[in-house]
């Protein structure tokens, strides 16, 4: 018997179940198909502007910084301003994400832009989140040809754009967005829920930012 079959058979024996029990199987299929929601905290269930305010407050609580621009076109200048205000070099790396690539970067000619995955030498990267989650100030990022995951973890500073309209109240709504895009039961290779900059408290419970991932996360809300 293979290890697989031995384990499954031991589980069935312990549970007093049989492999062919159609009733049990139907229960499992139904749960996987319907993915019932459980308890959703009331905290995030707010009108749009209040939800965005909660998202910002929660993100700031975990040491992210937040700014807001009215339109996509204002993003390049917001990025350049942030870099200047925080004394960072005017250079960023980003993926080929059309939501970013097509923006009027010519308006900030001093900004050097590189594209593609990071090799660890970039100080600052820029990504676009697919959603935000207000209840914990969390960003939802997905991987794909135009969105290298390395941009999320290797830089010192990670700038993330998120559309105001895509800031949801709860995680479940974000899963709704992913399902709508990839299909039920399907996922992009990587989904990163990111809540503030990297940290560690492993030495004497002293909280320090920037353990292995970015020391700084700056969120630009668009819209």
């Amino acid at each position, binding site marked *: 018997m293979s290890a697989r079959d031995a384990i499954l058979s031991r589980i069935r024996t312990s549970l007093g179940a049989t492999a062919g029990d159609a009733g049990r199987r139907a229960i499992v299929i139904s749960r996987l198909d319907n993915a019932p929601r459980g308890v959703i905290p009331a905290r995030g269930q707010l009108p749009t502007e209040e939800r965005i305010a909660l998202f910002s407050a929660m993100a700031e609580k975990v040491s992210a910084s937040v700014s807001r621009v009215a339109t996509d076109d204002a993003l390049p200048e917001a990025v350049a301003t942030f870099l200047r205000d925080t004394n960072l070099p005017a250079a960023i790396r980003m993926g080929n994400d059309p939501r970013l690539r097509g923006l009027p970067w010519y308006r900030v000619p001093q900004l050097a832009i590189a594209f593609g995955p990071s090799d660890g030498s970039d100080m600052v990267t820029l990504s676009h989140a697919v959603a935000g989650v207000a209840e914990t100030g969390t960003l939802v990022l997905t991987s794909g040809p135009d969105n290298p995951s390395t941009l999320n973890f290797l830089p010192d500073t990670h700038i993330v754009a998120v559309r105001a309209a895509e800031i949801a109240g709860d995680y479940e709504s974000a899963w709704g967005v992913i399902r709508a895009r990839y299909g039920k039961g399907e996922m992009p290779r990587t989904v990163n829920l990111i809540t503030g900059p990297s940290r*560690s408290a492993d030495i004497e419970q002293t909280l320090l930012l920037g353990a292995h991932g970015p020391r700084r996360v700056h969120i630009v809300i668009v819209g």
Partner: protein
Amino acid sequence: MEITSPQFKQNSRRAMQDPNLQKAMGYVRTGFIERRRIAVEGLPEFDRLRDSARDIKNHTLAHLDLYLEAYETKVRGAGGEVHYAETAADARDLILGICQRTGARTVTKGKSMVSEEIELNDHLEANGIQPIETDLGEYIIQLRGEPPSHLIAPAVHLTKEQVEADFRRVHTHLPADRDLSEPTTLLAEARAILRERFLASDVGITGANFLIAETGTSVIVTNEGNGDLSQLLPKVHIVLATIEKITPTLEDVSQILRVLARSGTGQDLSVYTTFSTGPRRPGDPDGPEEYHVVILDNGRSSMLGSDFQDMLRCIRCGACMNHCPVYQEVGGHSYGSVYAGPMGAVLTPSLAGIDKAGHLPNASTFCGRCESVCPMHIPLPKMMRHWREREFERHLSPKTVRWGLGVWAFVARHPRLYRLATKLAIGTLYKFGKLKGRFRRVPFAGGWTRHRDLPAPQGKTFHELLAERKRAA
């Protein structure tokens, strides 16, 4: 599993005399507990979420075979491979095999308690492959050749001075006069050294907080980002997880996530919650080329349907140990196994046998604080009692205890005999103790009087006095 649980008493005595450990445990006593309290009070739905999380796990465990099959199908569909291991040795060999086939020389590791459970690092090293722990706490204890002392804070037993000494001992290529006096400088040094290791690593090994049946996804929950770099940068990603990590859907995972970090570190959510499904896709600019999941049983399937099934709900948050008065005094290493504190006192006997781990479920005051903070409502004291019952049934408990208990229970079953025996005993005790009101030493009660006085009885027993009053009336 090589364990020193039989030496629990000696281990704990040493721990209580170790000033570094006692200083470090002070941080557990204050930090974790207060932060959890604030996080829990900040979420009015917390208790309902606990119930929900418990129900999800109970449902999953009752259908575990089917959810495992569903999970496996989805992983394969996403281009990943699923391997099953019945024992720790099987898991070690499977992982070594993948590493060898890849021609790996170094592997970077995210924090994984299961990897500690199966002692993976020793096995890889013995076969010429260098495992590098990348969680800061795990990195520190790896330098020291120690097991973790806490589920989520593996180096919680150390002071920063001890960490500094280890870094100076091992990082000899760096200037000897560098400043390492603060946690920030220690962290910066570890970050720089480990960054090079990540970029040069051939295989990344992580654990998993959840395996999602709906999507074939493995989930890791971290704060540092080391787990992500471990699974993102090398060519091959191996996930090592035990069977009970299966969770049906994204919605179910979301329920449990809401109680996990709040219970452990007191965060609303950990910094990185990462969902990985299969290897790099066509056109992807980064990510591993191979994605393997090693699903380990190691005794868990036998816990299903037993008195210990509820333990399989554990999500390894560490709240039980943070709140345990015994753990707070003796630290994690005293338990002599990978899993410490109340959850270890239940799990270790399942994995290593009650004959070896008998002390663990006994070294509890049954104060119930662990159960009261457990996000999964695991009845830890009840299960420790079940282990004591197994011990008693197998005549493993000390003879003197069994004998004393037997005599006492016999007397207590016979009220008249009980009245007579207690009257005589208490009368005698009173005679010797009435002058001072207490004893500094009592024969056969050294365990009590070594550290505290024994208050003397007031004189006659309640039942004697009551009988006298009745006669008088």
